[in-house]
């Protein structure tokens, strides 16, 4: 290198040099990885809204819920074959869960490494929802496994009758552990969504000082509606409104 080019060497390296693809850049950076978490989180959140609304059909009796469950398998016919829609949705969800989980795991490891030594004088920081994102996420991941074994594969369901989700739900929530696990998980979900929704907006760069309040209110409302909506089912089963 001559004397002059070296002065601009850095600019060349960062400016026009060969650089990895956009996706690689994103995934490799903390900001991009957080964005992946935000996007996958929003996907799951959308799913949860529909899932919660579907669940409420339990209050209209077994016919309504079981019919709805059967319909989900026929969505898209005749373009899609029977059950395909459900599998596509499951694949998308699985992808979202994997991206969310892997990114969370990698980022958490990085974050813990970045702060190896704690302060001896500990002070309560941030909100409860913010502080419990990691463990809340772990609880939710474990719950998803339980939830699938309980109500999808029916492996651990006390009744386990395929094609009869209403009866299986009632059976599961009628046990103390079935209802208990579900309730704890839904509370964790509420907290997770409360910080997660606002955090996603911040991470995706759609937050600004004017929107901040609105976004926080939305996050709280969404968390509240989801939590109440999901909790209503096991509570109804436990107090005998649904049986």
């Amino acid at each position, binding site marked *: 290198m*001559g*004397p*002059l080019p*070296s*002065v*601009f*060497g*850095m*600019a060349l390296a960062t400016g026009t040099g060969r650089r990895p693809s956009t996706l690689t850049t994103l995934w490799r950076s903390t900001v991009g990885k957080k964005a992946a978490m935000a996007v996958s989180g929003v996907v799951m959140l959308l799913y949860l809204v529909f899932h919660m609304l579907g669940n409420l059909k339990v209050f209209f009796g077994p016919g309504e819920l079981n019919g709805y469950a059967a319909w989900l398998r026929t969505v898209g016919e005749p373009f899609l074959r029977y059950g395909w829609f459900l599998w596509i949705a499951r694949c998308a969800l699985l992808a979202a869960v994997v991206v969310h989980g892997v990114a969370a795991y990698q980022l958490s490891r990085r974050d813990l490494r970045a702060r190896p030594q704690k302060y001896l004088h500990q002070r309560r920081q941030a909100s409860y929802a913010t502080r419990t994102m990691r463990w809340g996420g772990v609880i939710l991941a474990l719950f998803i496994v339980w939830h699938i074994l309980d109500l999808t594969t029916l492996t651990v369901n006390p009744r386990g009758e395929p094609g009869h989700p209403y009866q299986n739900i009632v059976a599961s929530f009628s046990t103390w552990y079935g209802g208990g696990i579900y309730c704890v998980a839904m509370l964790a979900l509420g907290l997770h969504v409360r910080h997660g929704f606002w955090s996603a907006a911040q991470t995706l760069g759609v937050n600004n000082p004017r929107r901040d309040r609105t976004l926080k209110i939305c996050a709280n409302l969404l968390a509240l509606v989801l939590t109440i909506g999901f909790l209503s089912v096991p509570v109804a089963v436990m107090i005998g409104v649904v049986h």
Partner: protein
Amino acid sequence: MSNYLDYRLGADLADTRAPAGPIEGRWDQRRFDAKLVNPANRRGRTVIVVGTGLAGGAAGATLAEQGYHVVQFCFQDSPRRAHSIAAQGGINAAKNYRNDGDSVRRLFYDTVKGGDFRSRESNVHRLAQISVEIIDQCVAQGVPFAREYGGLLDTRSFGGVQVSRTFYARGQTGQQLLLGAYQALSRQIAAGSVQMHARTEMLDLVVIDGRARGIVARDLVTGRISTHLADAVVLATGGYGNVFYLSTNAKNSNTTAIWRAHRRGAYFANPCFTQIHPTCIPRSGDHQSKLTLMSESLRNDGRIWVPSAPGDTRPPAEIPEAERDYYLERTYPAFGNLVPRDIASRAAKTVCDEGRGVGPGGQGVYLDFADAIQRLGRAAVEAKYGNLFEMYQRITAEDPYRVPMRIYPAIHYTMGGLWVDYDLQTTLPGLFAIGEANFSDHGANRLGASALMQGLADGYFVLPATLNDYLARLPTAPVPADHPEIARVEGEVTDRLARLLAVDGDRTPDSFHRELGELLWDHCGMARSDAGLRKALARIPELRAEFWQRIRVPGTGEELNQSLEKANRLVDHLELAELMCLDALHRTESCGGHFRTESRTPDGEAARRDEEFSYAAAWEFTGPGSAPVLHREQLVFDHVHPTQRSYA
């Protein structure tokens, strides 16, 4: 050591670099006359820059952009922290955006007059010319100056100047300008063009065959002493206000670099020209470690007063109007509270000496906003001065909206420094001094918002042009690493540190520094007298001797040792203090920041004596404690006719 006072008069000194001819064309002519270094050869030329403030940061970045290999030093942990960052008010430039009659010529005139006719016309004119380029440069770098709604730059008038030529970024102009220079420098560091040594302090200068060829520096973390060689050395190490211990300078600002250079042959000019700022927060007790300045814009609306009767300790609200003395308004009815810095400062000292000062120790006067709040409303006052009031309240826990502020003058800036010619080269070839470290542009008094202008002018524009000329003419032979001079200077540095560590006495560095500061403040501060200066000159050598017997520096030299840093800087302050007092003693006139009680007009104001003292006093070092040699640079005023200032 009393023979220190018997200084000798050496040959007169003259600047030979400024071309003759019309003053407007001199800088152009100088740049044209300057030899250039072939761009391909610049990489092979190394320049050392010490300091990363406005001047140093700007110089390092610019020299690297030109292709030189720059090796730069700062004692802070990052080049972003130099004390230029604390400048609040603004930066002057003769842009005439307001169409209010400003021009290069007017800025030149104001600066020469403001400096009380003790600066060099060629230099000041160049400064005024370059001022406009500085604003362009800083805007291009992204410095967020205040703007009008139309998107154009806002300006304000500052320090009693009649035109609105001060560009500003809220109360943080220095910070924003410094960060601009720091960012430009960071770009060059990342590109490998500047080799940056942070937490590394210059402790001596290496002079080989009569030229500055390097420095000896200490890594403040490991304590390692090393020599860095170069083709030229640039000192951008700021002023020496900290010799007073209490000043508005940063705690670690010091004189070591320029004093060591002085000891190696560079002349030190006008050391007694120190500026005192009238609106600082008074000290709250003996623990005080530094003083905080508040923008002098406060004097636009605040009224300064003290109780009429000495010893009146009533709270201000209980003192009736009739028993208050608005002494500036009374003595200077035309200018009132807006008299120049030096006059406002001296008046405050006078009333405090009369026993009428307020606050702890009686070292303060009131700056009262009650009238302004009544006249303009609290909201308007808050909009104008809110951040300053907040700062005051944070430090004093007093609410200036309800209780008058207390202010007192403090050492703020030093106009003196290493003597430099038009090229900013010291009397030692290859050694350049820029920014506050040199003596060049402000004469005996600096105008508000001119320090930033000078630092950046020197760093961005002047030095890069003149240094070229020096390097182009310099033989390129490198200094062999085993040159005996290197080992000799390194040895001296190491010995001095070892001596400091070995005394193991019973006094801390700060205790000596406080004592030195008080001595200087009393006798070489706002008002200086023959008797007082002689007293200080008698005491300083004693204090120095005591220092070497009683200093205690714990720890070793091979680690981060802040006591050692302090003590080592103090050694140089203790020597500089003596030269300051001698310079003040020899200059039996009053001018600018230098007020000799013997030299007054019949109505008690400062009286300049042009027939005897129209010169810059450049002192040559002859040995520690031994009488220096005075070289005078006669000042010629072809364009601005010296007049006596009058504010009555």
